């Protein structure tokens, strides 16, 4: 799993590619969010467009990212959910926890 990080209008956009699963992608996501927070980011957007598979560890890592950022008085939102990622979040009623968008620009604008 690879993660790209970009910046738009003061928003840190974290874009994982591939699987967010136990032992690999979940750790990478945790580190990316941690690094963003350490760098002072408080507006963080997870762009999930290129995520192919999420398991319970990946879901757990997304929840951890959400609570960690929120506890630091930041905001974490998600955008471009593939249908299977949306389904797996829906099943565990987490879809309503995350502020979710279908369009990157709309998501970035929502932070301002």
């Amino acid at each position, binding site marked *: 799993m690879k993660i790209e990080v970009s910046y738009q209008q003061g928003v840190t956009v974290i874009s994982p590619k591939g699987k967010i*699963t*136990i*032992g*690999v992608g979940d750790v990478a996501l945790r580190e990316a969010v941690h690094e963003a927070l350490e760098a002072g980011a408080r507006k963080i957007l997870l762009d999930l467009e290129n995520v192919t*598979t999420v*398991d*319970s*560890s990946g*879901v*757990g*890592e997304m*929840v*951890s990212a*959400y*609570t960690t950022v929120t506890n630091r008085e930041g905001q974490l939102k998600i955008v471009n959910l593939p249908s*299977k990622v949306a*389904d*797996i979040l*829906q*099943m*565990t*009623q*987490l879809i309503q*926890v995350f502020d979710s968008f279908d369009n990157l620009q709309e998501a970035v604008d929502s932070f301002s």
Partner: protein
Amino acid sequence: MQPVEEPQVKISIGSRYDHIDLISVVVDDALARLGLDDDARHWVGIAIREAVANAIKHGNRQDPDKNVEVELAVAGDEAVIRVHDHGEGFSLEQVADPLAEENLLRPNGRGIFYMNNFMDEVEYAERPDGGTIVTMRKRLAAGQVSVDPAEKAEEAGSSTSS
């Protein structure tokens, strides 16, 4: 319940998470040959990932000297997947409901919930020589393989709260 034939696939891995991908690839190929469509294989693949991850983490406690065995067999119109570990077993009663409000933001505790939702049947048994055997069944017949997450979540929610 149909008698289970000899396994079509039998894999043994060390207790390392990076071996889960190997199992996924092999089992996915076997399920495709059995006629399971892409969507169904994705969800069954997640269930197998969860079962193997649990076997590595909670069963074998990541002991590199303990293996996890995975078998895929066919019984009638069902694919039967068994995951064996060599741990000390666990109690299902101790597994918290991930849909309970107080658990919603917990970072863990959703694996068994997903397994129950993505498979038609999940059973747990203790091995005579120690460890746990998880047996998961998925119907192969056309029209019975797709997963409707909303419907399954509703079913799971009602069964969990009963």
